[in-house]
């Protein structure tokens, strides 16, 4: 067997392979922000004398997370398609729900880490789906609520809600201005995007 000058110990080559795959700066900053702004044991009650201070710090921290998310996502190309790709990937993963309930008030009350209140969308609920529950997620780095429904045909649908910001999400159809929702298709799923009452709403569902 010929000896090659390019050969190196196998362990070194394996390490090089892994070292070639790294988090990029924006991913790293996102993860650092998540750690900085989500205190370990947020489910524990703070001492009464500190509770107001803790909530204040938390509100500032959450604002920083959202600001970082917005900053990192400014001017990043074709936004509706990016949103569609992201929500479809989340839809296909079907991660376990943080809360299981068919009561929108109960589900909304669970999302204490959001700086908005998830709404019962008039556009979406015309279809009369059954709410199954929700979990936290993010769209373009901004923390969002993910609500899972079962439609009348028995298929699972996902509704994402996140505060709407044109700088982050580009100009999208506004229901309040009677603009029809934008419909896209990604990986065999139908994705519908619209803005309602200041929130960006995105659904992913199997096409009819």
């Amino acid at each position, binding site marked *: *067997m*010929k*000896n*090659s000058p*390019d*050969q*190196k*110990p*196998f*362990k070194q*080559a*394996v*390490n*090089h*392979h*892994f*070292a070639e*795959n*790294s*988090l990029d700066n924006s*991913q*790293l900053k*996102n*993860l*650092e922000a*998540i*750690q*900085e702004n*989500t*205190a*370990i*044991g*947020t*489910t*524990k009650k703070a001492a009464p004398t500190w509770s107001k201070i803790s909530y204040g710090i938390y509100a500032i921290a959450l604002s920083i997370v959202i600001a970082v998310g917005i900053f990192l996502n400014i001017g990043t190309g074709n936004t509706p398609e990016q949103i569609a790709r992201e929500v479809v*990937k989340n839809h*296909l*993963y*079907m*991660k*376990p729900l943080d809360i299981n309930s068919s009561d929108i008030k109960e589900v909304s009350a669970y999302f204490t880490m959001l700086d908005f209140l998830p709404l019962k969308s008039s556009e979406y609920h015309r279809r009369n789906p059954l709410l199954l529950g929700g979990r*936290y997620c993010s769209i373009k780095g901004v923390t969002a609520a993910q609500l899972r429904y079962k439609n009348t045909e028995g298929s699972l649908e996902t509704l994402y809600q996140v505060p709407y910001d044109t700088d982050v999400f580009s100009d999208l159809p506004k229901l309040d201005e009677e603009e029809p929702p934008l419909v896209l298709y990604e990986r065999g799923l139908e994705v519908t995007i619209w803005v309602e009452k200041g929130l960006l709403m995105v659904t992913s569902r199997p096409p009819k």
Partner: protein
Amino acid sequence: MFNSKQLQQLYRYSFSLCAHKDDAYDLLQSALEKLLKRSNDSEYNLSYCRTTIRNLYIDQCRRRSILAFQPLEDELPADINEHSLEDLVIQQKTLEEIWPLFDTTDREILFLWAALGHTAQEIAEETETARGTVLSRIHRIRQKVTKYGQAVGLAEHKEGSKS
């Protein structure tokens, strides 16, 4: 809190399981969120985070009806030892060509062995596998490397390369 170096290490562990950059990032993010939700900061360490990543990966595979870690089919070879990968040499280009041959278990073992310097016993403890199974896996990895290496004439033993 994990620093950037530790986050990179955890990301590479995720990548060793997923073999996909975006999926590895999502997996790591989910694991961090899960750890942060817990009230025990003694669990916020690298080892525990890797276990969380591994369990989340298994859950994801189960939901997608994919087998997360492929079982061994044959008996453990008798002549293996945990240093059987140490004396291999290879070109980087050849390793990249071989890499798709490695399954999830292979990649995880390679990461724990090469990047973290774990012994077979430590890998066995972390992955809750018998040491013999880990050794058998190492033997399989070596077989894949040498078989492919012989085919292209580039992977060989250090001693062989000196001759």
